[in-house]
């Protein structure tokens, strides 16, 4: 009875929240239902016919979750997932509630939940997933999450609580994630990239986790793919990247348009750009195989994938293409810049930086982003967001000539469109709430749909 009451109260809150346009109704219903029945997610998760997958890590959670959902739906299963980045336990609860029936029961085959790094322990306990994916661990919002080390320890504790029948799927290329995996009793399924042709020449400025956990020596990188993810080893032989069970080879990147790679004898092609998405695709592939999907089917299904909100979302504005790319921490930003400038040949940019709670109130990380990449190559750079002035200083010291900082999203957008030649694409790289602000303006102008419809 308590569960049914919780489900109904949650559902009513979700409906009200959407009607009143407060937002997508993505987490508030979870708060309400959990207040009535704290075990509501545990009970709903038990209803799932085949089980659930949880995805965590600093970057790529939403895209990976969406890819896994796409695979399962393509195989004819019904899937419940927390979309739109609502990745705290309340978001997962809200998603389950929305799909529960009038009897308070969830009649769905699979759950696919992206889970914030700090919420993973609770999520594992309540959801009892069949597979848990850890994508990477980069520095992110130190004011909110604290140090990487503390996060890593919590993730390890969560993975230790996985049921015996479930599998940890881990990124072998991330030294801190690998350390977690080596400490587990059950061997994880390791994934990683194996293609030196797409490696960078050295570690970027914001590299973390680059010392040996056993002897403290600085790790030697034979290849660097994204941030501090690559092929590494301790010079004293105390620690090395685990050999991937699933390795991506023969990687081919085409701007923001697509990526292709070979995995386990099949050729994957995905309409998403950037090397970072190779990791997301590989993790989703690993999950698909773990959950029993056929690798040829996965490859086929990937070809028709569509990106999530603000993640390589493409719009048209007065004859200019707009490419919206969420960029929220140094590792993520460096990758989206690299993709936009080096792979897509982008020339027109709006960089949006907000310092609200969801973005992180400390903006010092912009100094770890290699904005120098834009120097001499970008023709338009509009610094936007409520910390546009900090961005303007960052760009000045990077030697990038930029437009004056513009905190107002509407005026920033006007400035961008005016300066971008017709027929060209502008790349909008923004932190989370800066993206929400810009998207709200795009919706007002009829250029984009509200995010809960996409």
């Amino acid at each position, binding site marked *: 009875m308590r569960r049914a009451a919780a489900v109904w109260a949650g559902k009513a809150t979700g409906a009200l929240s959407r009607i009143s346009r407060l937002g997508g109704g993505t987490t508030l219903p979870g708060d309400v239902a959990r207040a009535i029945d704290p075990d509501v997610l545990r009970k709903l998760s038990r209803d799932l016919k085949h089980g659930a997958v949880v995805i965590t890590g600093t970057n790529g959670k939403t895209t990976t979750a969406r890819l896994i959902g796409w695979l399962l739906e393509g195989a004819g299963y019904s899937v419940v997932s927390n979309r739109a980045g609502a990745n705290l336990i309340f978001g997962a609860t809200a998603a389950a509630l929305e799909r529960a029936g009038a009897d308070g029961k969830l009649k769905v085959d699979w759950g696919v939940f992206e889970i914030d790094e700090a919420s993973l322990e609770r999520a594992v306990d309540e959801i009892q997933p069949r597979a848990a994916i850890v994508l990477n661990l980069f*520095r992110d919002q*130190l*004011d909110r999450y*604290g*140090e*990487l*080390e503390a996060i890593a320890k919590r993730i390890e504790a969560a993975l230790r609580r996985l049921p015996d029948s479930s599998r940890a799927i881990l990124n072998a290329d991330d030294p801190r994630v690998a350390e977690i995996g080596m400490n587990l009793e059950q061997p994880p399924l390791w994934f990683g990239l194996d293609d030196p042709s797409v490696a960078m020449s050295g570690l970027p*400025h914001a*590299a*973390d986790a*680059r*010392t040996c956990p056993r002897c*403290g020596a*600085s790790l030697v990188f034979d290849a660097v793919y994204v941030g501090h993810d690559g092929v590494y080893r301790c010079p004293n032989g105390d620690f090395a990247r685990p050999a991937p069970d699933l390795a991506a080879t023969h990687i081919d990147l085409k701007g923001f348009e697509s990526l292709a790679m070979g995995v386990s004898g099949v050729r994957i092609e995905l309409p998403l750009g950037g090397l970072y998405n190779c990791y997301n695709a590989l993790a989703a592939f690993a999950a698909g195989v773990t959950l029993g999907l056929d690798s040829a089917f996965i490859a086929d299904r990937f070809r028709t994938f569509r990106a999530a909100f603000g993640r390589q979302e493409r719009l048209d504005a007065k004859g200019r293409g707009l490419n919206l790319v969420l960029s929220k921490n140094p590792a993520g930003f460096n990758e989206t810049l690299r993709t936009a400038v080096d792979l897509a040949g982008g020339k027109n940019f709006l960089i949006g930086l907000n310092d609200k709670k969801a973005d992180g*109130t*400390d*903006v*010092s*990380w*912009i*100094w*770890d982003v290699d904005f120098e990449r834009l120097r001499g190559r970008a023709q338009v750079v509009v610094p936007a967001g409520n*910390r546009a*002035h*900090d961005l*303007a*200083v*960052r760009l*000045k*010291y990077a030697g990038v000539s930029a437009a004056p*900082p513009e905190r107002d999203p509407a005026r920033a957008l006007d400035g961008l469109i005016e300066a971008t030649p017709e027929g060209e694409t502008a790349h909008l790289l923004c932190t989370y709430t800066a993206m929400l602000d810009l998207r709200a303006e795009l919706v007002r102008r009829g250029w984009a749909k509200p995010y809960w419809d996409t």
Partner: protein
Amino acid sequence: MARKTFTVGWLYPDLMNIYGDRGNILTLLKRAEWRGFDARLVELERGTTHGIEDVDVFFFGGGQDREQALVYEDLLDSKQPLLERAVAGGAGVLAVCGGYQLLGHYYLTADGDRFPGIGLIDVRTEAGKRRFIGDVVVDTDMADLHPQTLVGFENHSGRTYLGPKARPLGRVRMGFGNNGEDHTEGCLQGAILGTYLHGSLLPKNPHLADHLIRSALERRGIKDLAPLDDAAEIAAHQQILARAHRG
């Protein structure tokens, strides 16, 4: 004639760099470069002291506990005597957060363990329960700073107390500062400047960057720095001040 050089020494750039510390390095280098200096960076990783004698201004940033423990031994064994000699010769030091704590007498953990620092500055630090996180505005009385405010972001659980040889960098108008009790923030002792402010500190406080550059160059008989256009930096500085006023 060869161009005059200006050299920044970054202590442990691979391990002590978590709060966008590269911003401080870039600001020092660019502001020297824009004035015609040949600006150079010496990276002082573990196991190397190469080029340390050329350094005009040292930077020592913050790290995670795990990394801080790794640099500790190297600091004591190899860098300390050379750092002391450089400071005695007039080189400047900017130490932020973890670097600030390590230059003091000791860090006392919550369990009562005492980790000695290198004692270059007369400060001591004790672990606190609550973490101090947020924007900071400091009023300073340093004579050559205009405006007389410093802005930044703090994120620390250490409580730092100043001894008689160190004087505070200023008083907090907003934020917690050294210890959340006496309203002081940072310390000045000779040419060493310690602080909890990052954000990064120097990009939004170009006057403080110039203070560090000017102080270090004085020993070479260079007294005046050519003025630069700081409109963008000061606009970012003013934004934080305006927020502090709004509360």
